[in-house]
């Protein structure tokens, strides 16, 4: 019995790291995604082009490759001058990777608001900034919540990739137990922890969607 408590505690330690990656990623990638989405919809062509390349690269290559690049590649390229510890490398990669996805989700959400809303706001004297803040973004939030929920679930699961750059998250710890003790039970415990987390995320997004259910966008 003690044994099972021990390995559960050990995997629970990893869960803390996983949650840290999860929250740090959301904390930075959501605002970054908003800014990039606005940039992509803005009138500066060079900025639009640069952001297009950014989202293309980060969405078009494996996240695992990006992790390797940040953790190993940058160090080699810079002759060791840039060197991140595994967790920092994970934060950086995940923030930029997820911000790329959020950029596209937010852009789509903003674009799905009809031009009648912009025209009504302008006819009332609202400037573009005010229109975005008061009229467009509040409505876009309702539209982006479902895809955001999906991304949040993906994010929980993607954190497992960090095990390959030796971040001591859930899967890494479970894997070490398994190879030390030849005990598949560690994987089952890890699976249960992931399920708990994704369940919580689903509940949170269900609540959020309910909060925005009071109106309909035609």
């Amino acid at each position: 019995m003690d044994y099972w408590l021990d390995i559960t505690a050990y995997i629970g330690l990893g869960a803390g790291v996983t949650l840290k990656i999860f929250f740090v990623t959301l904390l930075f990638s959501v605002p970054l995604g908003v800014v990039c989405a606005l940039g992509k919809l803005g009138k500066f062509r060079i900025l639009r082009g640069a952001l297009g390349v950014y989202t293309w690269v980060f969405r078009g290559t494996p996240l695992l490759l990006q992790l390797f690049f940040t953790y190993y590649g940058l160090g080699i390229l810079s002759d060791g001058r840039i060197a991140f510890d595994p967790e920092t490398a994970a934060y950086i990669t995940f923030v930029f990777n997820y911000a790329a996805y959020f950029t596209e989700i937010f852009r789509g959400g903003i674009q799905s608001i009809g031009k009648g809303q912009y025209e009504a706001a302008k006819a009332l004297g609202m400037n573009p900034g005010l229109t975005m803040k008061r009229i467009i973004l509040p409505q876009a939030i309702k539209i982006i919540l479902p895809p955001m929920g999906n991304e949040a679930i993906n994010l929980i699961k993607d954190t497992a990739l960090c095990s390959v750059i030796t971040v001591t998250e859930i899967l890494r710890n479970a894997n070490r137990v398994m190879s030390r003790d030849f005990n598949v039970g560690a994987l089952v415990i890890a699976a249960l922890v992931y399920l708990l987390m994704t369940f919580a995320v689903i509940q949170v997004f269900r609540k959020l969607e309910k909060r925005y259910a009071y109106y309909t966008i035609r």
Partner: protein
Amino acid sequence: MCAPRDRVEELNGIEANQTEIVKATNLHKSFGRLHVLKGVDFYANRGEILSVVGPSGSGKSTLLRLLNHLETADRGSIRIDGRYIAKENADGRSEYISGKKVLKICSKLGMVFQNFNLFPHKSVIENLMEAPMTVAGVSKDAAAEKAESLLEKVGLTDKRNAYPGQLSGGQQQRVAIARALAMDPEIMLFDEPTSALDPELIGEVLGVIKNLAAERITMIIVTHEMNFARGISDRILFMDGGLILADGTPDDILVNPSHPRIRDFLRKIIREQ
């Protein structure tokens, strides 16, 4: 008109003729290769009620949308209450003043759209309070008070907390009218305000517009409701093919039309209804 004085007035940006609250000259607008307005001269006098009629595609909406800067003119000048928002330069192109200033000047114009365009995430009363509070800087209490009186005017006090999605088309359009009025416009633009409505809902919206007419706000109404236009208008413009073909009293245009195109148009409208 004596020319030198005119020029001085223009340099000041103030129009001498203060009865013309809206004045547009030689307006041209193309969408790609489609030449939609082909040199429209337009004016509306202060307090005047003006209807614009004509076949669809003739450029009526485009004309309205140029007046409040939802579209920009290619050529020609636009003056609102004596101030230019666009002025024809030496080679005929429209030169606009800064976007900020245009927005300020165009705040004298309220607009009612065919599809209402209410803010769906805001309740009826929030729709009415939004611009007064965020644009005009009116306090919340004052905005709410004003909104209540406007809701009374359009007969929707009991819907103050409803959301647009819960209202009929006619109710939504009445809210949209109240929302525009909340900014105290001097000019109201209506772009086919009843065209998206079921027939049984048209009357309530026309009724609200009729009541406004009594307040003598300048109104420019694009409509296919000929009886309504005839009853309410001081003057009616007939547009076809990107030009104003006729400009006269309701009787001139709708009862004894001299222009064959108007007769065709009226015949068609009657057949459709």
